[in-house]
């Protein structure tokens, strides 16, 4: 089967972000989505540290230590962009003003619980940042993650074994194998990669799946 690589996953998520959307891309894999947003769409990227209209990385030598993204990497501000303080920034999240946020995850449960902030290991220093605010704030929460962990365990689970970030907050999961909506009636498979059949996807996923009537085959460049 044509399992997607991480860039193709980012490209696939980018296809679903419409013109005019206010979007927060989480640290790590979701940051790559910005590289694939179509140039003909105006999309507003939000960064938790007080930016709307965030642009790409600056040219070498033009980095500004006071213009960073949430991952503390240098960025730029587009014309029309704005700066604001942390209270306003998190009001944009918590207040439901962001249309979409895209987050990475350790696990997502069948009920849409998200685990992405802490492994729960006894010696790990916990750090949460804005993960819990993003999880519950945006109108739509997209998760992008590999379908299986490095140990081959499915990251879509009946119940999260890692500490949760938010309860029932995930709307859609993009993996390297499929696009799956979390609905009131369970997990609905919207798309699968070329060469993967539904029975195989179900075999890999320890949660009951339903194949959407209009399920498609994933297309990337």
């Amino acid at each position, binding site marked *: 089967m044509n399992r997607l690589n991480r860039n193709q996953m980012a490209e696939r998520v980018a296809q679903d972000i419409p013109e005019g959307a206010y979007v927060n891309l989480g640290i790590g894999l979701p940051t790559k989505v910005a590289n694939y947003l179509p140039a003909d769409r105006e999309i507003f990227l939000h960064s938790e540290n007080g930016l709307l209209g965030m642009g790409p990385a600056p040219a070498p030598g033009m980095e500004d230590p006071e213009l960073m993204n949430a991952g503390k990497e240098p960025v730029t501000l587009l014309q029309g962009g704005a700066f604001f303080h942390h*209270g306003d920034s998190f009001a944009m999240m918590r207040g439901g003003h962001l249309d979409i946020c895209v987050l990475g995850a350790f696990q997502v449960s069948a009920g849409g619980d998200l685990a992405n902030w802490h492994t729960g290991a006894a010696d790990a220093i916990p750090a949460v940042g804005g993960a819990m605010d993003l999880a519950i704030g945006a109108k739509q929460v997209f998760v992008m993650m590999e379908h299986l962990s490095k140990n081959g365990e499915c990251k879509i689970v009946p119940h999260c074994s890692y500490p949760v970030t938010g309860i029932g907050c995930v709307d859609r999961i993009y993996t390297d194998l499929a696009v799956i909506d979390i609905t009131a009636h369970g997990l609905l498979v919207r798309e699968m990669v070329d060469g993967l059949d539904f029975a195989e996807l179900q075999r890999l996923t320890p949660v009951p799946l339903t194949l959407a009537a209009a399920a498609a085959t994933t297309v990337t460049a």
Partner: protein
Amino acid sequence: MIDKTVSSLEEAVAGIFDGATVMIGGFGIAGQPAELIDALIAHGARDLTIVNNNAGNGEIGLAALLKARRVKKIICSFPRQADSQVFDALYHAGEIELELVPQGNLAARIQAAGAGLGAIYTPTGYGTLLAEGKETREIDGKHYVLEYPIRADFALIKAFRGDRWGNLVYRKAARNFGPIMAAAATVTIAQVGEVVPLGVLDPESIVTPGIFVQRVVAVPGLAQARVA
């Protein structure tokens, strides 16, 4: 004549007492008032409770304050970073207390203090480890956690320009926690790249009105000089 400017960093941090709660602005190093922190280290106050988004980067600024063993507790959202080795070592040695707060709750609790609210109900963190043991309430079908304000004895913040009444404007993403911390502390101390005469700051564009600021100290710096 009211003049909140002070002529030295030493004077700016005067009176910070042992055991004080001190908010420090910044997101990583953006907006971190590094010179005020250095002055605080020289000043010598200890057993501090620090409120910041992070727990220090590298060996400078907040990390240096931690390394000098002046901090007994830190309230923050994201302590662990690639260059948070000073905090990491203190934490693993059991020599610093950590109160981990989701970033938006950190902001909201600071804002609640500045706004004089007794507490807030926030949806963030509901059902997670960080809400364990906390009071919750269902309002209009949604679940919320009761969180209390975070106020401070002092706030150390960094702004771009200020005037003698304490009005401040910021630069780019260095604004972050500055405005909300300014409102939540008894004594807010701002280091600014430039002190300008009254009237130079456009009243329509002042971000922090002087009522929230008690001391202003000029610290011309590289970042502030790069006006874009």
